[in-house]
């Protein structure tokens, strides 16, 4: 009898392990992917005469890498514009920005034009570049644009990647972000620890506290109940066992 139970239990265990394995390689945590890994040391072409690898650039000053393509009809332009404006508001300037095209159709000329449009061509803090090793670079920073044949466009994130002087990715920002987030990114490339907390979204069910930005107040959430459950259930279990064993004591 006992052996049967053990056998069934083992089968169930193996089954659930196999089943769950399929779920592990999920796509979440984009912003954390590749953080604290070394960035691929791609050779960047900056203009007709100049080229340098990412590590060579990073050695002088830490870098923020932004990924765009010049034929982008979506997020690239607003992203670059906001990025530029946010950076202007930040006083500390001990870092450089490298804008790299991930579209192999882009030439040095295209990138120079892009720099011109954003009025960054002569700004020494900014570098616009193309590279032959875009696939290795993209995978090393956890960036995976998908080509849409119909629209002749890439489906991609707006991404800024902080790389410190040792070539280590310290933080990533995905999406259009405010200057506060950018400050945290800059702090991280300077070696300071920046606490972060993932904000609850729609898929987040059991938050301990719910912050109301309108009132600025933190209200207890359903999650707190989960912390109390073990103690409450234990108490109930003891009471139930006490009732069940009443006859033995009599």
């Amino acid at each position: 009898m006992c052996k049967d139970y053990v056998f069934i239990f083992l089968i169930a265990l193996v089954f659930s392990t196999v089943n769950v394995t399929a779920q592990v390689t999920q796509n979440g945590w984009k912003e954390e992917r590749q953080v604290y890994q070394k960035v691929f040391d791609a050779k960047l072409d900056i203009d007709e005469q100049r080229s340098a690898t990412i590590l060579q650039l990073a050695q002088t000053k830490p870098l923020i890498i932004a990924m765009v393509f010049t034929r982008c009809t979506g997020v690239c332009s607003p992203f670059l514009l906001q990025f530029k404006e946010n950076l202007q508001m930040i006083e500390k300037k001990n870092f450089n920005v490298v804008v790299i095209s991930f579209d192999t159709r882009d030439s040095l000329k295209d990138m120079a034009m892009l720099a011109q449009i954003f009025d960054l061509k002569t700004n020494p803090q900014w570098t616009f570049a193309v590279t032959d090793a875009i696939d290795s670079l993209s995978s090393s920073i956890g960036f995976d644009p998908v080509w849409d044949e119909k629209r002749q466009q890439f489906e991609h994130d707006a991404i800024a990647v902080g790389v410190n002087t040792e070539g280590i990715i310290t933080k990533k920002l995905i999406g259009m972000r405010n200057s506060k987030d950018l400050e945290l990114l800059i702090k991280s490339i300077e070696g300071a620890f920046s606490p972060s907390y993932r904000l609850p979204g729609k898929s987040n069910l059991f938050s301990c506290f719910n912050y109301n930005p309108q009132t600025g107040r933190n209200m207890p959430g359903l999650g707190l109940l989960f912390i109390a459950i073990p103690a409450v259930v234990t108490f109930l279990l003891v009471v139930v066992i006490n009732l069940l064993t009443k006859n033995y004591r009599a």
Partner: protein
Amino acid sequence: METVKIKKITALWIVVVLLLFVVSIILGILMRLNQGEIIHHSPVTFYGNMTTHGLTMIGIWFVAGMAGVNYLMQRYVTVSLWPNMTGLIFTAIGVILLWVSTFIGDFHAGWTFLYPLPFKVMWASWATPMFLCSLTVMGVGWLIWSLGMVMQLLKRYSISQVFAWQHFGKNPKVETPPFVLISMITLVGVIASLLAAVVLLILYFMEFFSNSSFVNDALLMKNLTYFFGHTIANEMLYLGLAVLYELFSEVSGRPKWKTTWYIAVSWNLSLVFILTAFFHHLYMDFVQPEGLQIVGQLASYLASLPAAGVTVFSVIIAVYRTKIKWSLTNLLFFIGVAGWVVGGLGALIDATISNNFVLHNTLWVPAHFHTYNVMGNVLFSLAFFHWFAMQFANNNITERFAKTKLGLLILGGAGFLAVFYLGGAESIPRRYSNYPAEFPSAQVLAYVGAIFATVYLIAILFFFLNISKRCVKIMFSSSS
């Protein structure tokens, strides 16, 4: 018949625990040697060893306490075999799954597997679910075992008697033995912590199965992790204390300890404090409201006062200017209490919010929790193991090499712990596989730690050989 089986299963538990202890110490020494740059492991190997070491140690000293309490409980109530058996089978399966996930699957998220680390797959993709399954299996087994014991206690004692509430007043009609009281209080804490693990694991699995359409709240997960981790690590110490309360006076040839009003009050209070002290693990979490941080500090202070204060007081009273029959068993208990007090003080220093800003995640943390384990709880259980083995030794064995064994144990343990404390005082971070140049003394301290730990290991090997030899005989003897 049932008693004989429980005797045999206890002997088996003892052998298994000691065997796994030796392996886990070796993993610990390898970690210290790596930190000392004497050997060179990859970070994956280091953190794999750290995860295996941490979880195996917590697991074995928990089951050691349970086995001891389970065995001695036969003195007061009828103890059934099957919950104990279930605990054993589930622990064995759980340990195998754990070791496969870490040694073969390279899972290395630490024994606290803090969310979201298990989902940041930097190992074989099957290793995360296998690791979580291993915890589930052990958790279920231990829950059944604990509930089984609570059931046995409540078959004999009413709820108020088992918690010794009648001792709050004068002249209680029924006496609740201290062993029964402490066991019950501890088992309730154990059950709560295991249920916290159940909730935690369910949330983990939900996120797995939902394919990211459901994500967990990091703060909730951290609270649950420490509700489980901190509480079970503390409760396993109390299991050891229950054994001490039962055996110390007996082996010392002194009258048996009785439950008084202050023992009853202090242990009842400690249940509340122990269940809320885990908040001190979240001092650095800026999103946790301040009120809970204060609860964490207060509960940490208060938790230590009743149980530690009363126990230390009782032990000192028992030995001060009285004729004691000293043996290896009560010496181990006595030194264990001293280790527990030193570790407890180290813990209180760290649990003070203002100090925690300095000591958080430095070597001070492994320093204090290793103190009350390596020189505290382990000694309580070793005392029980030794006493148990001696009980059933046919001939009148003299306690050979007792002084050597104890000497090595104290020397090795104290030296190993001292360098952890020194490291903590110098703000050397914990959980670093290799120390950066900013901490010039860290490597040397790690190397010295490894040497002392080896001395400790030698002492443990002595105990292992001596005790296991007798336990194996007990396991295979046909007589009762």
